[in-house]
């Protein structure tokens, strides 16, 4: 039988010399307590955080400190300025730039861009799936020419699910992918049924694009 209110059976309590005077007259199941002062750095942190909190709250709630929305508006207006500048620069379709990019191996690079971004909806080789078949002569929002395809890619057709690619891929990549799409024309690969209107006079395949066209695998 152990005597619950005696310390004789308990292991000897380890008390350091310099803290003996701090030992309190408390004993709970053999647990004792010292009464050290609160460390200074702890008190500093404790009261410091509270003082900071009071000032922080007063500043942002009562003294007109910027709200999160204020800060957002400021941040976003800078972005909008950048975008406006970019829009000015990119402008509309630039045939000269297009020819230059095509001459620079644009079709090959365009195919990479296509595989990375477009096949999710237009499938490999543009046979269509979620988006329309690009290998037939039917077009929904363009005439199948680089000039008319450019705004479809650049701005997208949100109501049909075509995303805005400006800002997602670079302008150069847009030209490249358009040149690749030109090589798909009138391949008439089996895929999604035709959508949109038939464009008979399809002089779309530019010379440069034709010569650079990769062999169908």
């Amino acid at each position, binding site marked *: *039988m*152990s*005597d*619950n*209110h*005696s*310390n004789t059976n308990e*292991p*000897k*309590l*380890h*008390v350091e010399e310099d803290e003996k005077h701090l*030992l309190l*007259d*408390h*004993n*709970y*199941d*053999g*647990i*004792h*307590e*010292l*009464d*050290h*002062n*609160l*460390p200074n750095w*702890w008190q500093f*942190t*404790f009261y410091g*955080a509270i003082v*900071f*909190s009071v000032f*922080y*709250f007063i500043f*942002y*709630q009562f003294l007109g400190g910027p709200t*999160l*929305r204020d800060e*957002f508006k400021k*941040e*976003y207006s*800078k*972005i*909008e*300025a*950048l*975008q406006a*500048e*970019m829009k000015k620069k990119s402008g509309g379709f630039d045939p000269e730039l297009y020819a230059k990019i095509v001459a620079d191996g644009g079709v090959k690079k365009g195919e990479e861009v296509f595989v990375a971004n477009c096949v*999710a*909806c237009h499938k490999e080789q543009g046979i269509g*799936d*979620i988006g329309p078949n690009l290998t037939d002569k039917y077009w929904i929002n363009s005439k199948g020419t680089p000039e008319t395809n450019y705004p479809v890619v650049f701005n997208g057709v*949100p109501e049909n*699910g075509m995303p805005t690619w400006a*800002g*997602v891929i670079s302008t150069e990549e847009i030209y490249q992918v358009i040149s690749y799409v030109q090589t798909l024309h009138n391949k008439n690969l089996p895929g*999604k049924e035709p959508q949109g209107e038939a464009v008979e006079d399809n002089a779309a395949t530019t010379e440069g694009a034709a010569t650079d066209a990769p062999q169908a695998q």
Partner: protein
Amino acid sequence: MSSTHSQNSSLTRRLETFSYDDQIVRWFVIATVIWGAVALLLGTTIAFQLAYWKVNGLGDLPWITFGRLRPLHTNAAIFAFCGNAIFAGIYYSTQRLLKTRLFSDALSRIHFWGWQLIIVAAALTLPFGFTQGKEYAELEWPIDIAIAGIWVVFAINFFGTLKVRRERHIYVAIWFYIATIITVAVLHIFNSLSLPVDFLKSYSVYAGVQDALVQWWYGHNAVAFFLTTPFLGLMYYFVPKAANRPVYSYRLSIIHFWSLVFIYIWAGPHHLLYTSLPEWAQTVGMVFSVSLWAPSWGGMINGLLTLRGVWNKVRTDPVLKLMATAVTFYGMSTFEGPLLSIKSVNAIAHYTDWIPGHVHAGTIGWNYMLTAGVLYFLVTKLWRTEIYSKKLAETQFWLATIGLVLYITSMWAAAFTQSAMWRAIDETGKLVYPNFIETVVKIVPMYWVRAFGGTFVFISFIIMMYNLYMTAKKGSVVDGEKLEAYALDESSIEKNAKPHRKLEGLTLVFSVLSLLAILVGSMIELIPTIMSYNYVIQKAEVKPYTPLEILGRDIYVREGCYTCHSQTIRPMAHEVLRYGKPSEAFEFIYDHPFQWGSKRTGPDLHRVGGKYPDMWHYRHMWDPREVVQGSIMPRYKWLFNSKINYNTLPKKLEVMATFGVPYSPEELQNGVALAEAQAKTITEGLVKSGAPSDVGNKEIVALIAYLQRLGTDYGRIK
């Protein structure tokens, strides 16, 4: 050496004989070990699912996907593992600190079996999609009621024990137990308020921003009052016991206890920074979180400095080593927590893997390590023997520590990488990484590191299981040992005691003060926002979900989509470029429950409506990799086989109408017909794009209806 007052006995004192109920402690110890292994196995499994999507299965078995197992993991870790550990430690220490047997053997046993049944009920519902869709409070309403009931049993048993105590003053461990029991009851009851649709489906009574605030008031304080205060109580008992050292500072105990309890309850809104929660509440959440740093470290100081002079023992004694490490990780995560609550830090860290990293520093570093120390202590005491193998315990310690460090550092690396990619905007005002998937693919290697770190932790636990089993096996159980102590009488009243010392003798007053301490913050934060239902600006354009969208939303909740996708866009340039305009409070007024989420393993979905064609979602849910190369999302092929369940739809709409969602009488009466008509329209479009013609009555259609609706109402507001 001082002696207690009770030893200066007078002749009139009554010596009483009693014994401890150690059997109930042993039961809880065994349950802790078993559920701990389950929780860690689940955690390791879902970690591998994030690293490699095929671990989710190939799309035929719904109940093993991440969205369903993740809630099971968190519930198992918190309520099954930590819950049983708390009960074991509290029942063991309380009897000894109060010199009495537990109030009622019967209540103890009801408590034990009730809690285990609740855990089993969780395991039988969560994987099957029965969930309320609120983090750490997923369990459906009958289980919620059972939890409340068993918690009351626990409370009666505990406060009854206080009543029959033979020690006048209550020790600091008991203070923490009191705060735990009171606060968890308040949190659980108010967060779980819901109206049932049927036996296993209910809707939260709160909607949108209100639901978010109540949920994170609960969610954060589940961390505070389920994973922190009870474990601090255990620390205050087991560390000085194992070290034979006096606690460092009594006055620090007082100030850190009261400041911790008072301040913690306010901190919830730091989970909602930059959301549409009123900004004053966000600021309150932040400043109280920052103020929590010192009170938390008060506990750490009292734990670590109690070990002053015995650090040589910490090196050799597994119990002390595990506990000292636990307290150190507690200090680390309670520094990281306030840091993460600072708005500008939170802007970077929120929704990233920093948060699971932070959480696991707490749960593995603090809760598991401390529990491991307590378990070795308890098993050697309760089976009256020495530890079977110190070497195995040493191995366990190192495996757990290395595993945890791998976990934390890999999540830091993943978070900094991904956050930087999310935020990167180039000089033309465009996102550098506009495709979310690019930012995921980049951090998948870190998910592998985390999964292996988790495996180390799991193995360490299995080693402990074996070590504890072998320890118990060589020991023996002796129950009913007779003890003696004097009945509580006036001799223990300390004259001229300081006020707090007096309070320690008045348990009822102490408990009431604890309740008041947590109610102040709760009421000041919750009441204005709950009442604001009436003055969140209402826009006529924001309409209730259609009947079919309600069904789709229930599928979204059932599959646990919120575990990986958020539904709230923060007012930040990069988020607006990526997802659309910032989310507003009035957009969520019909969201019972809210589905804002807390982690973006996938992109935000608040304005996904109309972003892609229906067919895109159709393909994506069949196999995400068909439309998003490199996606780590599981397949959801069963949505293409399971038929939409229209049976409970009228009741669902009725419950929503009870909440004040303005459905017209026509919608309430013809809900099913309206839903079928909408399903038909969607189906026609899908079939045109190549889907099979019998898709019309399948769940995928309802889910598409919901996804396509998300965030579009506000899009129509000029």
